[in-house]
C-alpha cells in the first residue's frame, strides 16, 4: 500500500496492538500528528510535558507487560523525554519512543530545534535508530518493537527526520525481523541448571533472592511454586515487591538499605543465594565484602552481563527465568524440605525479634500508618505507583502487596516525578482498578502539570502526598550523617494543595487526622476525579531499618526509638 511515512508510524503502532499513546506535538513531528488526528486505531493522550509522556507510557508498560509508546518532537521535545528514557532503561521497561527530527538535509547544520537525539540517548536506550530513508522505516519500526520487548527488555528510540514523514512510499509491515547479530538467550544451559539443583539439594541455608526480572519474565507463579516445593525462604528487592504476595509465609520481605531485619540477616547468613532476575545493586548489597559472605551463588538472568558484574557467581545461568524454572522444577521432585527447617526457624526468630515496626500516634498521622491504612481500605483492588524518597520506602515496606505489577516505581534511576504520570499510564491500562500514587511534597511538584492531563481525559488517580514539609529522604541523611544541617531540604513554604488541584480541574483534600484520612480516601474513590490528598505526617519520621550507605547489611539502624518530634 502507498502511504506517507507519518501514516506508516501510525499503522505500525496499530499493528503492534498499542491502544494508548502518550505524547506532545511540535514542528518536526507535525506530519505524524496529522495522521494521529485521522486514525482511529489508538487513543492519544496529550500530557503537559514530554517527560510525563514517557513516564506514562512506562507506567502503562509496567502495569501490562506490553510495550508502551510515546511521541515527541525534536530538540527540546526530545531532551525533555530523556529522563523518561533513562528511567525505563534502568528498570528494563519495554518502550518505543518516536521522536521527530529536523529534515534530513538540515541534519548537522545546527538547524532550528536540531539536537543529536541518537547521540544523547545512546547510553540510556537499549537501542536507537536515526531513520535514513522511507524504505527502511517499516523495518525499523518492526525492529524497534521487537528489540524493546525481547531479551532483557528496554526502551528504543526511533528518530525520524521530518521529510521522511511526508514522503510517500510502499508500506508492508514485516512479519518477522531479521537481526543476525541480536539473538537473546532464553533457554538456560541444562547442565548448569542440573548443577544448580544439586547445590540446592546440598545446601542447608538456601535463600531465594528475587529481583525485577521475575516481574518482567511473568514468572511469579513459577517462582511461588518453586518456593513452595522447596520450602526455601524468600527475599524480594524493591523491584520485585508483589512477586510472592505478602501473605506467603515463606516471604521474609524486602532486603537492602531499607530492608527487613530478617531479610538482611538471611542474606548475611545464607549458604546458597538463588538469585532470579536481580542484579546485586549497591542499595541491596551494602558492603560487598560482607555480602552473602558464606554463600555460593546461583544467578539466573537473561542478561549475561548482569552475571558476575558485581559478585563472583558459582552457578551462572543465562536464560529466561520462566524457561529455567520450568526445567528446574521436575529436577527438584522429592527434595527434602525438612533439611531447611532449622534455617527457617532461625529466620523466624529474627523476624520475631525485629519485625518492621513504628510507633503510631493519635496526635499526628504516621506515614507508615497511612500506607497500612490504604492497604486495609483498598488492598488488592489498587495499583500503587510511587515517586522517590521516604514515602517510596514506606510504601514498599508497609503496603500489603498481593501480586506483581501492583507496585510501580522507579527503582533503578530513582526519578522524582515518575509516580503521577506513571499512575496515568497504569490507570489507562486498568480503568477499573483504583490507582494511587504515593508521593511526597517534593516529588509531586516535579510533574504536577499532569493534573491538567488527568482532569481533561478524566483519569482519576489519587495522589497521596505524605507531606512532611521536607525533602524527607535527604533530610534523613542530613540528620544521620551531616549533623542535622538541613541544607536546602526544608519545604516549609508550601502551595495551597487543595486550591492547586481545584485550579487544574481536580479535587483536593487537606488531611490531618485519621478520621479525615479515611473520609478522604473513600470520598476520592467515590468522586472518581483526579485528586491531591495532602496528608500532613510526622515531620521527622525516619525510614528504618537503615543500612548506612556502604555498610554491611547486618549492621542496621533499627526502629527502637521512633521519635515523635525532633528533640
Amino acid at each position, binding site marked *: 500500500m502507498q502511504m506517507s511515512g507519518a501514516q506508516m508510524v501510525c499503522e505500525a503502532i496499530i499493528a503492534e496492538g498499542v491502544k494508548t499513546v502518550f505524547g506532545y506535538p511540535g514542528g518536526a513531528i507535525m506530519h505524524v500528528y496529522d495522521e494521529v488526528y485521522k486514525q482511529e486505531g489508538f487513543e492519544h493522550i496529550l500530557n503537559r510535558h514530554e517527560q510525563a509522556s514517557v513516564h506514562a507510557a512506562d507506567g502503562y508498560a509496567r502495569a501490562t507487560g506490553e510495550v508502551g509508546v510515546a511521541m515527541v518532537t525534536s530538540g527540546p521535545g526530545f531532551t525533555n523525554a530523556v529522563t523518561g528514557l533513562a528511567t525505563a532503561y534502568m528498570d528494563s521497561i519495554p518502550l518505543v519512543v518516536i521522536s521527530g527530527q529536523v529534515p534530513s538535509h538540515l541534519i548537522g547544520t545546527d538547524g532550528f530545534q536540531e539536537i543529536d537525539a541518537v547521540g544523547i540517548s545512546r547510553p540510556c536506550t537499549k*537501542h536507537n535508530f536515526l531513520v535514513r530513508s522511507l524504505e527502511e522505516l517499516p523495518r525499523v519500526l518492526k525492529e524497534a518493537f521487537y528489540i524493546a520487548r525481547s531479551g532483557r527488555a528496554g526502551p528504543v528510540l526511533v528518530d525520524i527526520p521530518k521529510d521522511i514523514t511526508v514522503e510517500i512510499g510502499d508500506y508492508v509491515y514485516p512479519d518477522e525481523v531479521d537481526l543476525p547479530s541480536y539473538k537473546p538467550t532464553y533457554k538456560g544451559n541444562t547442565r548448569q541448571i542440573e548443577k544448580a539443583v544439586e547445590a540446592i539439594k546440598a545446601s542447608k541455608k538456601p535463600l531465594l533472592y528475587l529481583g525485577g526480572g521475575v516481574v518482567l519474565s511473568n514468572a511469579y507463579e513459577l517462582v511461588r511454586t518453586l518456593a513452595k516445593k522447596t520450602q526455601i525462604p524468600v527475599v524480594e528487592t524493591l523491584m520485585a515487591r508483589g512477586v510472592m504476595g505478602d501473605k506467603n509465609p515463606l516471604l521474609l520481605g524486602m532486603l537492602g538499605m531499607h530492608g527487613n531485619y530478617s531479610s538482611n540477616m538471611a542474606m548475611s547468613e545464607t549458604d546458597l543465594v538463588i538469585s532470579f532476575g536481580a542484579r546485586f545493586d549497591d542499595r541491596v548489597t551494602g558492603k560487598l565484602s560482607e555480602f552473602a559472605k558464606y554463600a555460593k551463588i546461583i544467578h539466573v538472568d537473561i542478561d549475561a*552481563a548482569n552475571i*558476575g558484574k558485581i559478585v563472583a557467581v558459582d552457578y551462572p545461568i543465562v536464560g529466561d527465568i520462566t524457561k529455567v524454572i520450568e526445567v528446574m522444577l521436575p529436577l527438584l521432585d522429592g527434595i527434602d524440605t525438612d533439611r531447611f527447617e532449622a534455617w527457617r526457624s532461625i529466620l523466624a526468630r529474627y523476624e520475631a525479634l525485629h519485625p518492621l515496626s513504628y510507633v503510631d500516634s493519635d496526635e499526628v498521622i504516621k506515614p507508615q500508618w497511612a500506607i497500612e491504612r490504604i492497604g486495609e481500605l483498598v488492598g488488592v483492588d489498587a495499583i500503587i505507583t510511587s515517586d522517590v524518597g521516604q514515602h517510596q520506602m514506606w510504601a514498599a515496606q508497609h503496603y500489603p502487596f498481593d501480586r506483581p505489577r501492583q507496585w510501580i516505581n522507579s527503582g533503578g534511576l530513582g526519578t522524582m516525578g515518575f509516580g503521577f504520570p506513571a499512575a496515568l499510564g497504569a490507570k489507562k491500562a486498568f480503568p477499573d482498578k483504583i490507582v494511587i500514587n504515593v508521593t511526597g511534597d517534593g516529588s509531586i511538584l516535579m510533574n504536577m502539570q499532569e493534573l491538567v492531563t488527568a482532569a481533561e481525559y478524566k483519569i482519576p488517580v489519587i495522589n497521596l502526598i505524605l507531606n512532611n514539609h521536607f525533602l524527607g529522604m535527604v533530610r534523613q541523611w542530613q540528620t544521620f550523617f551531616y549533623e542535622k544541617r538541613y541544607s536546602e531540604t526544608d519545604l516549609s513554604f508550601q502551595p495551597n494543595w487543595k486550591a492547586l488541584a481545584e485550579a487544574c480541574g481536580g479535587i483536593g483534600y487537606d488531611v490531618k487526622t485519621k478520621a479525615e484520612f479515611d473520609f478522604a480516601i473513600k470520598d476520592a474513590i467515590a468522586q472518581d476525579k483526579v485528586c491531591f490528598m495532602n496528608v500532613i505526617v510526622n515531620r521527622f519520621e525516619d525510614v528504618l531499618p537503615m543500612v548506612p550507605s556502604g555498610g554491611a547489611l547486618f549492621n542496621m539502624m533499627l526502629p527502637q526509638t521512633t521519635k515523635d518530634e525532633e528533640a
Partner: protein
Amino acid sequence: MAQVIDERRVISVIVLNESSVLARITSLFAGRGYNIESLTVAPIPNTQMSHITIATNSSARTMEQISKQLHKLIPVYKVIEHEEMIEKEMVLAKFPIQENLADISVLASAYNGGVVNVGKEMIIVMVADEPKRIKHFIEASERYNPCEIVRGGVVAIER
C-alpha cells in the same frame, strides 16, 4: 587476585557495518570507564560487516564485562577475546634527508619494512611488526631525529 590485575588484552569485534556503530562502541567504553589503548576498524571484504580490533589494558574481570557489554549492542555480531593470535601494527615514520639514510633503511627492513618515499627534504619509511617490536623500532629510530611518527593501531587475527 589474578582477576584484578590489569594486563594488555586484544579483542576483535565483528559488527554490522551500519552508521554509528563505531560511536556505540566507543561510547560504551567511555561511559563505563573501560580503557582503550588502540582501536582499528575496516570493512570485511565481501560482507556487510566490519572488523574492529581493540587493544585494552584491563583485568580479567573487566575484560569479561567488556565482552558481555559489547555483545549486548544490537549491531555486534561477535566478540573474540584473543589468546592465540598474530598481532601486527603498522608505523609510518618521517626523517630529515640529512640523516644517515643507509642506517634508516637497514633499521626499517629489520622491522619488516622499508623506504616508501624519498623527497627533497624528507625520507619516509614504513614498518609492520608485533606491537612489542614496534616499540623497539620507535626507540631505535629516535637516534635519527624523526620529524613525525604515525602508528596505525593493532590488528589481530586468531591463529
